[in-house]
């Protein structure tokens, strides 16, 4: 039995419609701590024009954002701030780790620099480069849009799969400060 539709009616799945809406209106939270932040600003500015992909509205409060872009190295003292901001963002939310430092610590393998933010917060997309070109960041955002479209649901159950809940590599296999000497 065929139903005749008017020309201005489109049939879609509600999940896909929600994902389509989400992926085309990403609001980035710029967590820019280093030179990657300059490339992030260039990406948002007129030459590279992130507005073409619906992600140009940078907001400096996590409560209005759904995409955290960590651009630059994160030091040990900054990590609680990063985690707090991540927790303040509303679901559904995504995270891009931009550049070598945010992804792996980069050249800063020292006592104070966190060796990759994915050890402590979930990351959806990694951008290599030191710093990455704006084109690379835009590519990451496009890839993230595909990911959002592919797995998004209205209820957000894609955030609750067993694969998502696997603990990040991180603490168990790394040396942890066991016997802290008494504070002087």
């Amino acid at each position, binding site marked *: 039995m065929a139903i005749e539709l008017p020309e201005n009616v489109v049939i879609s799945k509600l999940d896909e419609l929600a994902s389509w809406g989400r992926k085309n209106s990403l609001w980035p939270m710029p967590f820019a701590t280093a030179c990657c932040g300059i490339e992030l600003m260039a990406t948002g500015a007129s030459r590279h024009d992130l507005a073409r992909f619906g992600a140009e509205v940078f907001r400096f409060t996590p409560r209005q954002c759904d995409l955290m872009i960590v651009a630059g190295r994160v030091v040990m003292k900054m990590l609680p701030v990063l*985690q707090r901001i*991540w927790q303040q963002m509303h679901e559904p939310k995504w995270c891009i780790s931009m550049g070598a430092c945010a992804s792996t610590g980069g050249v800063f393998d020292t*006592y104070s620099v966190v060796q990759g933010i994915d*050890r402590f917060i*979930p990351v959806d997309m990694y951008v290599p480069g030191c710093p990455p070109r704006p084109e690379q960041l835009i590519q990451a955002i496009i890839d993230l849009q595909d990911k959002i479209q592919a797995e998004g649901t209205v209820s957000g159950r894609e955030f609750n799969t067993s694969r998502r*809940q696997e603990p990040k590599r991180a603490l168990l296999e790394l*040396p942890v*400060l066991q016997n*802290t*000497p008494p504070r002087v």
Partner: protein
Amino acid sequence: MPVTTAIESIIRRVDGVTTDAYKAQHRMTAPVDSIHEVLAMLHGDYGFDLLVDVTCVDYLNYRDADHRFGLVYVLSNTDNNARLIVRTYVDDPEPTVPSVTDLWKGADWMEREVWDMFGVRFADHADLRRILLPDEFAAHPLRKDYPLQGRGERHNFPVLTRDHE
């Protein structure tokens, strides 16, 4: 008053003070017992009213070094732009030097930074807390015997996953 006059005068007045110069840079070394006296003279009598920097050098395993830590005070006279570097040496255990916050108020944070990074105590400092590192940090990382990659401090955080939120 040229800086050389101040140096010569202090050498006459205080025992154990030595001096050397490289081009126009004048340096003075005082024993730790008289470092506060020397700095007070330079501040009060010779017009060194600006303490540019207080920093420290760890001479562990350094060639020909006699002491563990070298404290460096960089002074400036804002009237005639004279510069003078004053040094003193301290050793383990419990390296301690007198605080100069009574002479220059600006020494406060610089001495806290030296304490934070090198673990050199400043006697009579009113508020000797860590300034850069987190309060619970248990080491002094610019010491030469501290490993570059730390002792696991940077891994000591809770891991956030999506199901915990």
